[in-house]
């Protein structure tokens, strides 16, 4: 699978809820493998960005499966952890704003408010239940991906925030977008 298999806005599936996975079948394992290949293939084409995580809906499978980069600060570390049926049990700490982007919303970055701590429950690839506490940027990533499984894209969280939208230019710098011109009535983003 290649980066071209990633579905992007305005594909309506990105706004649909995914279904729970009952059993970890070979097909589920294949989706996890495909997610990893696709995330890395995308990253290899982007000089200033890291694929931190991806959800199954982004490669057109409406299943509650996500993968999260083991070290999302280091491009050299190329492995991911899969979480099946990820659920946020509790959001804690304080709300902080930081930049996030999405493989399904190319070039647009947003300053999104998120809780900085989250308690998470999921199933691992062997079908065992896992529970953990996520902190800081990891908490942000999990919230972003769990949103995907519920049909929410990050821009939906900042829809009315005029100064929250940015574009990543070719030098790797984030330039503010003109909300009224580029965002407000952009049919690609909202229809």
């Amino acid at each position, binding site marked *: 699978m290649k980066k071209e298999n990633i579905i992007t806005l305005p594909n309506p599936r990105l706004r649909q809820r995914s279904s729970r996975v009952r059993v970890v079948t070979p097909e589920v394992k294949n989706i996890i493998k495909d997610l990893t290949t696709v995330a890395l293939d995308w990253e290899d084409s982007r000089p*200033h960005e890291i694929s931190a995580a991806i959800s199954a809906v982004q490669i057109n499978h409406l299943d509650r499966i996500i993968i999260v980069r083991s*070290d999302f600060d280091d491009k050299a570390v190329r492995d991911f952890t899969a979480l099946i049926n990820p659920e946020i049990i509790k959001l804690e700490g304080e709300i902080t704003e930081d930049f996030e982007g999405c493989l399904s919303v190319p070039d647009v*970055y947003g300053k999104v408010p998120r809780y900085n701590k989250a308690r998470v429950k999921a199933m691992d690839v062997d079908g065992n239940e896992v529970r953990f506490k996520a902190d800081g940027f990891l908490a942000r*990533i999990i919230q972003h991906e769990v949103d995907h499984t519920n049909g929410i894209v990050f821009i939906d969280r900042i829809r009315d925030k005029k100064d929250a939208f940015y574009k990543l230019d070719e030098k790797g710098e984030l330039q503010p977008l003109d909300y009224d011109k580029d965002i407000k009535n952009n049919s690609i983003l909202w229809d």
Partner: protein
Amino acid sequence: MTKTSKTIVFFGTDDFSLSTLQKLIEAGYNIAAVVTKPDSKSGRGQMLQMSSVKKLAVKHNIPVWQPDKVADINDKIAKLGNEVMGILVSYGKIIPITTINLFNPGIINVHPSLLPQYRGPSPIESSIKNGDPQTGVSIMKLTAGMDSGPIYAQIIHKLSGNETRPDLYRTLSGAGAILLTTILPLIIDGSISPTPQDEDKSSYCKLLLKSDALIDPMTISAKQFEQTVRAYIGFPKTKIIIGKSELIITKAHISTGRTSPLDVLCKDKKSLTIDELVAPSGKTISNKDYINGYL
């Protein structure tokens, strides 16, 4: 989800910072910009001179920022995205807190002393001048106070009692570069956190000025005088007045009896024998040549 990749903004101006920048480039870090002081006038004809840090950055196609006021680059830093880390090695300007706050996990600083000893601008000179048995390099997180941030790591360097200012700059600059690049991955992934400095043990060293060069031998011991000569080589230098001439001492040793006309009697009644000096002609010459030529 995607994020912008970890980038580094490097602050540095003088040669002490060069080896750290070199090591960071070699290690493949994504350096978004090098911040250095504006080019200064120097040399014959007062030509504008690029710092060696700027030359290295230009060679590697890294953008160079030279703000008059550091806060002027705040907008540019904010545009670099998610996780921008600052690294500062002898930059030469105070960083305002508004700039520090733009970095995550902050600005990491390499300081050539065993903090909290010798906070301030002349730690290398101070350790030689005071005849310390050891000094070192500290890696710390920059805060609003002068060199008072919490410490990630330190390395000790034993002093032999013979090193000069240029020697120790070279040694500690290399040691600092290695220590920083060794622990940087751990700082980035958050697996080490810094320890606060013990305020009760803190000490400060001052900014050295040209006027610090002139020494009155009757105010210090011969040992202190000899240490000062080694500490101040290059800048601010060590000067004494003999007869009507102002001499710059570049090498000296403590002697028991008077062995040469160029012995200087110090406060503790011991003498300092000048081995090498810069004569009024501007040439560096030996004791013997000076005596033959000038006395």
